[in-house]
């Protein structure tokens, strides 16, 4: 990070913290409701930027006097980072006060926005209703067990097929999205960057959203769920795999290159042996995670046991819901134990 870059970031950060705190106080005093806030959005935004400007000026002024601001603490370049004076308590430093005020404001705001109300938890009537529901769930209806088993098997295979299709694609992608392989030429860096960005984008879309897209594309059913998990798995695995490729040691690569081996031979004989075990480990873990996700994809029409859970839950048939929860928990627990056992064994 350049010196000026650090200074700009620091000032912007302090400016936002200042505007945030002042607006927090204003809202606490004037108590506007959210309709009023939305109606006057233009004014509010202007107010925010005005306050931020003042905050930025204050930050610069304070820094000029040599006082450390919170922005400075967070964005100072590594070489200018100093250990704070241990004799001065946090609340007597400028940045400490900034931090404490911001945390308090955020907690209070969060309390209000999430409508926290502990009293609701101890009202008598809802408690007895919840207890009744618990009692019904805790007394599963075993007559639907065979059907639940058939459906969980479907979920297991949705997860398996998604992983199986994703592995070879992610395997190939992992090499062309590894910096140590692609970083040697400008074209390589472009491909590397494009792939990394697209992995991150598709990973930030949860499988359940992919499932909604695919149910429209290929209609409801396990195929849509499988495709949703596959897309997510390709991005996740390719990213994890390529990080493994970036971590391989150079020694064997030099060793193989020195024999006159070609590029493909170097990848196959010097890199692949180093990555096989971590690849297997990540793959099994991915199957494990996919299974967990596959159990709830049914809620949006992605097939598997989630479909059943949604139906019974919609009809408030709690004993049947209980059976499904038991089956899900059992299978996920077994898969989890199996996956961690295998991963420990190949370390």
């Amino acid at each position, binding site marked *: 990070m350049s010196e000026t870059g650090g200074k700009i970031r620091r000032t912007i950060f302090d400016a936002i913290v200042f505007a945030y705190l002042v607006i927090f106080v204003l809202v606490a005093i004037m108590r506007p409701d959210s309709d009023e806030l939305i109606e006057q959005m233009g004014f509010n935004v202007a107010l925010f930027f005005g306050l931020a400007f003042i905050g930025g000026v204050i930050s610069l002024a304070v820094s000029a006097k040599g006082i450390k601001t919170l922005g400075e603490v967070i964005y100072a370049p590594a070489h200018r980072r100093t250990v704070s004076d241990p004799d001065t308590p946090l609340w007597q430093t400028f940045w400490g006060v900034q931090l404490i005020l911001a945390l308090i404001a955020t907690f209070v705001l969060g309390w209000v926005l999430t409508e926290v109300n502990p009293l609701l938890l101890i009202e008598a009537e809802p408690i007895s209703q919840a207890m009744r529901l618990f009692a019904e769930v805790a007394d599963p209806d075993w007559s639907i067990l065979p059907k639940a088993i058939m459906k969980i098997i479907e979920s297991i295979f949705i997860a398996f097929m998604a992983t199986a299709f994703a592995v070879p694609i992610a395997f190939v992608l992992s090499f062309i999205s590894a910096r140590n392989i692609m970083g040697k030429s400008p074209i390589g860096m472009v491909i590397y960057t494009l792939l990394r960005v697209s992995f991150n984008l598709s990973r930030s879309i949860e499988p359940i959203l992919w499932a909604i897209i695919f149910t429209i594309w290929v209609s409801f059913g396990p195929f849509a769920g499988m495709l949703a998990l596959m897309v997510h798995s390709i991005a996740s695995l390719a990213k994890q795999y390529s990080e493994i490729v970036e971590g391989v040691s150079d020694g064997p690569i030099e060793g193989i290159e020195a024999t*006159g081996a070609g590029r*493909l031979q170097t990848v196959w004989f010097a890199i692949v042996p180093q990555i096989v075990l971590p690849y297997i480990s990540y793959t099994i873990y991915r199957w494990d995670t996919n299974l967990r996700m596959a159990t709830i994809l049914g809620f949006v029409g992605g097939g598997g046991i989630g479909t059943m859970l949604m139906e019974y839950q919609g009809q408030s048939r709690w004993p049947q819901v209980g059976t499904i929860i038991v089956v899900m928990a059992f299978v996920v627990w077994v898969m989890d134990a199996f996956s961690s056992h295998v991963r420990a064994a190949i370390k």
Partner: protein
Amino acid sequence: MKTYPNGVRALKGVSFDVKRGEFLVIIGLSGSGKSTLLRCLNRLHEPTSGEIIFRSESDGMRKEFDIAKAEGKQIYEVRRKIGMIFQHFNIIERHSVINNVLYGSLGRTSAWRSILGLYSQEDRRKAKDYLDLVGIGDKAHYRASQLSGGQQQRVAIARALMQSPEILLADEPVASLDPATCHTVMDYLRKVNTELGLTVICNLHFLSLVRQYGTRVIALKAGELVYEGHPNDIDEAWFARIYGEGAREVHVN
């Protein structure tokens, strides 16, 4: 001449000759450019400027070409004629010893044949012979990681021989071995030098080894050639000039 992208000039105006069958030793402090020099010779690193003239005498043909000017496939060809062993052995630890030796033939085997493991009978026999030559024929089917450091370095030597090279580069071949094993490995290097007639160019730390094994020595200091001569001619004055005042010689026996 070699300048790294960060502007560090690792080698400056280094010029020397190596004659066929020599055991040339390169000495110098860590960071003096020894490793860079070796890696420029087989183009693991790109020299920034200069010439590396290689007179090849394979198949009864006399050829002379500039390694520094090799491009594309020619670089693989150059590397094939020049074997190399490393301080940390750089063999594939998870694979068997015999396979590691066979990797020496990758340069003359097509990618798909090597990936499917279809090495020629000739190559398989050779690999076995070279393992015998370095005294670990009985370890052929062990996993390379099961071998000791000295044995792993001998696997690396066998792999380099497998290339049928004309030159063998050795980058600190004994620096991560204990003193006893160190001599075994050096003895095998001398063996391939004298018996197979391979030219050896070897980076070394310990002067006692240099005097024992080298037929000629050059010294680098901060990327420049500061000494060239016979190992026994390095007296205390030269030692101080190469390694700096106050340096003391350490003996390995």
